[in-house]
């Protein structure tokens, strides 16, 4: 498990221990990665985050068209592995969780413990730091710092 | 020279309803093929449940395998079908004596001798047991007969405190890492499935604990799975161990809870002795 923000670690570890998930990715709704577990290549993390955020955005758009409230969960079930995408509120804004799991667990269990994860993150989040203007060099520096955190380099 | 086992097997194959399984089972025992002997004996009991000789064969096979409690149950069944059966009385006497209970062995020996008064071997055995019950010889015999190797796989079933489980077909005790501490478990076909089952038990314990906790039911006490051919009972004798019992499907469901309590106490006593 790798996290950008240390306070995410404990609730996330608890989720990983209980849910039996194979891959887990937490990101902002803009696709910025917050934490990951199970991925071995940074390019896969980036791609999964971007695609996951896009799927959630598309689903939100469908909900708008249908004039219904946003769908909480998107489930893709496969023959050997399945994928759950779930948007949830945090003190830091709307985040998205992407979880890949196999037959050793179930979507019911993943959902059950994901709910606990969301509640745990809400409790663990420290007050948000004051926002500041993002300069190009800051962005690249922060991106590289994120990658180092996520992959331990 | 033809192989008698092969001949008997061929006879049984050509006429599955025949009683030749009795001779075949005995031949397999004598040849030191316990698994095959067990299969034949079990098949015989299933086909002839009211035949004392089929239960007698099964009991002898089980006794060979060290499954004293199952052997005792089979011999008791023989006596129900054929009171005074010499083989069953001898067998039960043997088991009692081996368990360090010469006093328990004596009635069976005397009953067998009563049915076969000319049997010198039985007469000597009776005399020996009576002597053994007097003083120092009895203590020595008891100590020798009850010596337990605490870490031997079959010790758990025969160990002190597990006597209530005479008809338990399997008992396995694990640590929290899913490693076997003691006991064995056989599948209905006689194969040893102890390690295969042990591999699943740690997960069962974890699931049960988690479910009870998250559903606000408190600490879990036991889990049972009832199937047409046997009941599985899983419980935590201590925080760091898991116990599984396999009971015959004929055991009333209501008894399973009582058995669970007895089993937990017995396992704790056993662990204390081991420590």
């Amino acid at each position, binding site marked *: 498990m790798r996290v950008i923000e240390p306070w995410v670690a404990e609730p996330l570890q608890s989720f990983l221990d209980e849910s039996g998930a194979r891959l887990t990715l937490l990101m902002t709704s803009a696709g910025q990665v917050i934490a990951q577990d199970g991925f071995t290549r940074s390019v896969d993390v980036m791609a999964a985050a971007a695609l996951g955020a896009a799927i959630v955005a598309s689903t939100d758009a469908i909900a708008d068209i249908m004039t219904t409230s946003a769908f909480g969960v998107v489930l893709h079930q496969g023959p050997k592995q399945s994928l759950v995408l779930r948007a949830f509120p945090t003190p830091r804004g709307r985040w998205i969780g992407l979880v890949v799991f196999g037959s050793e667990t*179930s979507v019911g*269990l993943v*959902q059950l413990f994901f709910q606990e994860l969301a509640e745990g993150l809400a409790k663990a989040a420290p007050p948000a730091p004051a926002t500041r203007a993002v300069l190009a060099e800051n962005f690249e520096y922060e991106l590289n710092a994120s990658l180092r955190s996520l992959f331990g380099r | 020279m033809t192989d008698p086992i092969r001949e008997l097997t061929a006879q049984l194959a050509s006429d599955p309803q025949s009683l030749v399984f009795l001779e075949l089972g005995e031949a397999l025992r004598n040849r030191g093929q316990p698994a095959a002997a067990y299969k034949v004996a079990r098949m015989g009991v299933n086909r002839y449940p009211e035949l004392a000789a089929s239960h007698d064969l099964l009991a002898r096979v089980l006794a060979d395998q060290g499954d004293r409690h199952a052997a005792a149950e089979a011999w008791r069944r023989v006596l129900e079908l054929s009171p005074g059966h010499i083989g069953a009385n001898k067998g039960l006497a043997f088991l009692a004596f081996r368990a360090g209970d010469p006093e328990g062995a004596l009635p069976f020996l005397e009953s067998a001798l009563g049915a076969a008064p000319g049997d010198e071997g039985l007469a000597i055995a009776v005399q020996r047991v009576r002597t053994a019950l007097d003083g120092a010889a009895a203590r020595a015999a008891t100590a020798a007969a009850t010596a337990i190797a605490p870490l031997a796989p079959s010790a758990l079933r025969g160990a002190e405190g597990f006597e209530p489980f005479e008809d338990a077909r*399997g008992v396995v005790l694990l640590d929290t890492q899913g490693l076997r501490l003691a006991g064995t478990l056989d599948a209905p076909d006689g194969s040893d499935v102890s390690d295969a089952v042990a591999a699943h038990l740690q997960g069962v314990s974890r*699931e*049960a604990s988690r479910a009870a906790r998250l559903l606000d*039911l408190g600490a879990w006490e036991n889990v049972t799975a*009832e199937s047409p051919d046997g009941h*599985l009972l899983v419980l935590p004798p201590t925080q760091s161990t898991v116990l599984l019992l396999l009971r015959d499907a004929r055991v009333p469901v209501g008894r399973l809870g009582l058995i669970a309590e007895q089993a937990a106490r017995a396992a704790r006593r056993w662990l204390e002795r081991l420590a």
Partner: protein
Amino acid sequence: MRNLGEALERVTRVAGIRGAMLVSESDGLVVAEALAEGLDGAAVAALAASLTLRLRRTATSAGLAVPHVVQLRAERGTVLSVPAGDDLLLVAVAERDANLGLARLELRQAAAQLGS
């Protein structure tokens, strides 16, 4: 069409039963439920399904047939589950002093009714 409500009701009528539900076994999701206040149906479904599956694998590895009843007994209650056909489980949550004998009977009869 199977009457799910009727099947659940016959179980919840038993004294001491806090709730009954029909659960998708492989997914651990609720199909139908009749629960008292304070019971988290999603949690019951997911956890009961997972435990039942685990016990089934243990029983199979012991050479036994698929269990027809799985029971978890805890300090403050009991969870029962029986197969109800088509990857379904009928699950009941009972108080400690519930009439488990009757609950088991109703569960099995309700499950048979659903499976037919």
